[in-house]
């Protein structure tokens, strides 16, 4: 059962444009929503994360928008650069204290920023 649905699968943006990646979830027990960036041959690296008690979080050119009622969250990359070309994964975490609290990942978005 895919608990986090991510779209689009691939995205091509011109340099300077805005990249938008969307995720939707079903499990209302999720309480932490990170986005990971992965370059070829590397492991995923945390980019930015949000908790459901806020609707937006911004760090530099990266912004997470969170809609709790719709169970959706999105990543916006402003002024996209060729160096942003990578695979982006949304994720969600749940579980009681003391449990694994493992991440449930979306299927990933391959972002290409054209120079």
């Amino acid at each position: 059962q895919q608990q986090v649905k991510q779209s689009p699968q691939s995205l091509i943006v011109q340099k300077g444009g805005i990249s938008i990646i969307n995720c939707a979830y079903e499990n209302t027990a999720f309480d932490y929503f990170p986005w990971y960036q992965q370059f070829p041959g590397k492991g995923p690296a945390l980019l930015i994360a949000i908790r459901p008690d806020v609707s937006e979080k911004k760090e530099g050119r990266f912004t997470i928008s969170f809609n709790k009622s719709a169970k959706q969250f999105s990543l916006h990359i402003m002024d996209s650069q060729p160096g942003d070309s990578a695979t982006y994964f949304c994720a969600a975490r749940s579980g009681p204290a003391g449990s694994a609290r493992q991440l449930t990942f979306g299927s990933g978005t391959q972002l290409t920023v054209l120079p």
Partner: protein
Amino acid sequence: GAGVSQSPSNKVTEKGKDVELRCDPISGHTALYWYRQSLGQGLEFLIYFQGNSAPDKSGLPSDRFSAERTGGSVSTLTIQRTQQEDSAVYLCASSLQAGGLYEQYFGPGTRLTVT
């Protein structure tokens, strides 16, 4: 400081053979996770270790998969009688603790190809 390291980086094996994948977490991190990343898919949780507690094996896809963590540090993921569907990138992550907002740091992964 040193990040999470994994070895080997690539492993090609014949169907039916056993393989061992190794993970060295960040020193001092008590929580360790194994994930599997299949082509075009997100990361799938496999197993979790926290200190000396019994591991959470709920994500292991079959009894051919097992893992151990010696001395609360290095972990080995073993796949017995490998099948072609086991071909994937196996990622290890560690964090200071499970839960809270402790970030999971990922290693570069081991790419397993079963021929």
